[in-house]
């Protein structure tokens, strides 16, 4: 357990700087957005205010998953941690990062909502995947799930890249693109994705989304595990 704690401490110290920079930019953009809105309102413009995007949070999670894996796997092997402990620690890091990101995102959204309401603006969220979500908990939870899925997907990509190299990754990409040429494949894939999205609609949609995200998380780690267990330090 101590090794996992040390592992998480390493992630905390390693990610702290980029995390602080990211959220400083997000909060600065938010503050600037409010100032710009006030300026235009004073000039008589009346329109719906569209504000910060969950997409940025998801992208941060994804990039973080990819970069951290490639950076920290050799480092941790050098520190004498087993690959199994590394994978376990990295999975916890994925979850904690997504959770913290979504909580801060929710706080930012609440702050914006309060500010725009106080200033008397019509306010809408930009890029909110599930516009029907009203509650703070639901909003945080969905943000968490989406960020987690992106993070774990890019961790998977990073693990393939680390183990097999860039050419192999390109090969997979090319294979997927080629498969799309087979009649019916594209429709089947999009049909499947559509049915997933539709099953997440409605009042209790987040429960389905939770199950899908959990399954996706486990599936990705089922692939990451053997890749990481056989990864070696690069020459």
């Amino acid at each position, binding site marked *: 357990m*101590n090794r996992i704690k040390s592992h998480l*401490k390493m992630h905390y110290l390693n990610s702290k700087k980029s995390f602080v920079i990211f959220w400083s930019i997000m909060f600065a953009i938010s503050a600037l957005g409010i100032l710009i809105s006030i300026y235009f309102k004073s000039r008589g413009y009346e329109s719906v205010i569209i504000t910060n995007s969950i997409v940025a949070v998801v992208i941060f999670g994804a990039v973080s998953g990819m970069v951290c894996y490639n950076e920290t796997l050799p480092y941790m*092997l050098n520190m004498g941690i087993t690959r199994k402990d590394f994978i376990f620690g990295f999975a916890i890091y994925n979850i904690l990062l997504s959770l913290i990101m979504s909580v801060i995102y929710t706080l930012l959204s609440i702050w914006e909502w309060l500010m725009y309401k106080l200033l008397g603006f019509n306010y809408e969220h930009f890029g909110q995947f599930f516009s029907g979500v009203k509650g703070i908990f639901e909003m945080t939870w969905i943000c968490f799930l989406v960020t987690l899925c992106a993070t774990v997907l890019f961790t998977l990509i990073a693990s393939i890249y680390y183990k097999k190299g860039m050419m192999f990754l390109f090969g997979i990409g090319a294979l997927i693109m080629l498969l799309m040429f087979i009649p019916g494949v594209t429709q089947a894939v999009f049909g499947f994705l559509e049915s997933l999205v539709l099953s997440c609609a409605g009042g209790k949609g987040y429960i389905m989304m939770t199950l899908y995200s959990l399954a996706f998380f486990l599936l990705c780690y089922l692939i990451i595990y053997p890749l990481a267990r056989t990864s070696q330090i690069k020459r």
Partner: protein
Amino acid sequence: MMTYAVECKNISKHFGKTTALSHINLNMEKDKIYGLLGRNGAGKSTLLNIVTAQTFPDDGEVKIFGESPYENGRALRNICIVKENGMFLKDVSVTGALDIASSFYNNWDKKLAERLLIEFQLDKRKTYRNLSLGMKSQLGIIVGLASRAPITIFDEPYIGLDAAGRQLFYDVLIEDYMENPRTIILSTHLIDEVSNLLEDVIILNKGEVMLEGNSEDIKNKAFYIRGTKDRVEKHISGKKVLSKEEFGNTMAVAIFDSISDNEIRAMELDDLAISSIPLQQLFIFLTGGKMIKRGDINE
């Protein structure tokens, strides 16, 4: 049966068509300082990566205190490896790097780490990315020494470090080793500087162990003999000659073989000058081109 700190049995490793290591058999005892010497590409770092389970051998097995290190946290906890390319996280400060290291090594000596920070005059707030090459080496050395790991490995630890910094490293290493004995493996090119520290020496050449043994024993077998050609030739007959140079009627040879006291007396009577070959020069003779098989030397 003796349990070795590090045991390598028949280790081989290939990278494509290149043979990095070929049938390496080595035993390293507890609480000794080993010098792992070899030219660039000799296989030193590959061997150390295999010993620390960071790379898998194609063949053979490694044991750390009798256990396989692969996915074995208990065995890996005994090892600290410091590499020439640092292996630190770029955006983490010196304080952060030491903080992380302290949580991984059970015997971490915080006081020693703090003392070395002061002695090396390393700025704790700087991130690894912003450290100079020498400072990066200093950080690695601090981690290696303060880890007090039962097996501490320094793989070319002092790239960019000035002479004073290297001397400080040697002084602290030997001081700390006397107080807290452990197995130290020092992989280096700067053989003359470390030759007095090393208890045992392992020379790798082209992926094979060319020579291994007690440092003093090896030094006691390596001699220059100078004198008139016919007399030198008379005395080196049957000995393993590493190099031979002639200047008119004078001959200088480097031999690597046991010489008895009687033989030395006989050489002195023949007016031959005998001197020891420094370890670094011996290393150059052994690895400098002419391939000398292990069997030729280790007998």
